[in-house]
């Protein structure tokens, strides 16, 4: 029983990281119906910025986190401006291929500068509390609380502010939103920046929780987060959170009770089964087909 609770806690930790990255995928998809395959690599950039700020410059945790988030957000917005904006009216596949290219570029650029995996020294003093036989480290608590805090913040932002309202309007109907006088390009840049910033925060947390980072780490984690977004129903913010926690739980539980090499197999098979049963994800809605 204690073992199960312990594993569920680990699941919550991994799930919150997945959920944070999945939010970036789902926001961009919601507003542009485009899969931003470079998002996993922005997460990787976040982890490397954490290394740069926290280990090389020796900054404490909070400035490191803020710096990584800001850096990833800025990079996200710049990528959108340079690579995706010229393709706004191109065939739908072109920006997706561009995103694959941008992702490869970020990976290999980082690899060219950092040929070896880096180790992130702990930035925070670690305490371990034992609650009813389950041990909780302060790092775990921080990761879970911080990501839930960020998610609540995002939810409030999207639902309560003018910018959030503009985002929802654009995802509803971009052409009409532009006619109503909304600065569409600015809002899209903001969406990319926010998504990338959340990805950067996830990168910092991942770097602290699993301290060895390398330039290709974004690929697998990025795909997993993408799957979370899809399982939850891509385009839906609550769906992305739900999917992230769900996938985290499945992975950790499979690794806990089966040989851990089965982890990917089980999680991807579950995805396939779910998609055959509910093709648009748990909270997703099918788009109406015009005839």
């Amino acid at each position: 029983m204690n073992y199960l609770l312990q594993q569920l806690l680990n699941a919550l930790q991994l799930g919150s990281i997945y959920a944070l990255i999945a939010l970036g995928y789902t926001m961009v998809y919601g507003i542009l119906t485009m899969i931003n395959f470079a998002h996993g690599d922005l997460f990787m950039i976040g982890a490397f910025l954490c290394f740069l700020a926290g280990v090389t410059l020796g900054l404490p945790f909070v400035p490191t986190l803020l710096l990584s988030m800001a850096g990833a957000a800025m990079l996200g917005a710049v990528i959108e401006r340079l690579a995706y904006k010229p393709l706004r009216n191109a065939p739908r596949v072109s920006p997706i291929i561009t995103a694959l290219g941008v992702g490869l570029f970020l990976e290999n650029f980082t690899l060219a500068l950092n040929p070896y995996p880096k180790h992130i020294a702990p930035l925070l003093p670690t305490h371990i509390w034992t609650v009813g036989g389950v041990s909780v480290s302060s790092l775990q608590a921080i990761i879970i609380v911080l990501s839930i805090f960020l998610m609540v913040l995002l939810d409030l932002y999207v639902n309560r502010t003018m910018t959030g309202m503009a985002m929802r309007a654009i995802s509803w109907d971009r052409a009409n939103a532009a006619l109503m006088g909304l600065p569409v390009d600015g809002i899209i840049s903001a969406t990319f920046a926010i998504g990338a910033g959340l990805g950067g925060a996830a990168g910092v947390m991942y770097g602290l929780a699993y301290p060895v980072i390398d330039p290709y780490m974004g690929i697998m984690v990025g795909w997993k987060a993408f799957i979370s977004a899809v399982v939850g129903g891509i385009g839906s913010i609550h769906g992305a959170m739900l999917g992230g926690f769900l996938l985290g739980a499945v992975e950790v539980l499979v690794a806990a009770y089966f040989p851990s090499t089965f982890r990917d197999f089980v999680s991807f098979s579950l995805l396939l089964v779910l998609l055959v049963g509910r093709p648009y994800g748990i909270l997703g809605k099918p788009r109406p087909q015009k005839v």
Partner: protein
Amino acid sequence: MYVGINVILAASLNLVNGYMGEFSVGHAGFMAAGAYLSSMLTIFSFPPGLSEWLFPLAVFAGGAGAALIGLLVAVPSFRTRGDYLAIVTLAFNMIVKSVLENIDAVGGPRGVLGIQRMTTLPWIFFWTVSAIWVIRNFVYSNHGRGVLSIREDETAGELMGVDTRRVKLLAFVVSAFFAGVAGGLFAHLIQFINPRMFDILKSTDVLIMVYLGGIGSIAGSILGATIYTVLLELLRPLEIWRMVLMPLMLVLLMIFRPRGIMGLREFRWFVPAREWAASVARIRAGRGADASTQG
């Protein structure tokens, strides 16, 4: 030699991605199935003296196995469309890699060693030409029209009486078959395979070739695969920076030519004569070629 294998891969993926307009990203999964199946056959089942003669059979069996798996992957694609198919194929690629890593009989994560080198230039040539020949004839056949109708508008195609399920199934099977063939040739060329070779990066490579050359164009696939392979070799002196340069070039290409070099066009000698006459007539009538929409 690699050019030939890459041409087969790109042309077969183009059938699904370019002509049918679905976004499949798991091509390396089919390739893995073909590579493993054919190398298992040549290592374990064939008598050693005869394996040279039975090699084409092994490659064909690899393709057939991959085609069977293609059938399985096509089924979920009936329910989902567009971006969701990308996810189905992606998950399929990961599952193939993960399954191969967990089967000890095929070496698990270590891979298969000691495959005989049997892929020769004539064999590559033979398979490349036959792949292009089959895909070209398929595209310009009645089934090929069905495939195009799915790209342009699936609902409308169905209303016109196209059996979209069967057409999708067929396109997937043909595409998977040639990916399996390419996998078999690949395994017998480099003599060593492991599951990590067929991960999502390999699929991305093929995607880049297809979109570099141009979607919906066999000539484009040949061109794309050749340019990509040759360029990677030429840029080898740059070492790691070539992998930085290549994606950058892809991004620039997408911005300035979103449909790739040959997008939706074809070499003159490639198109059957009456097709060419018809398209010329269409252009004269002022309606342009069928380059209107891209799903």
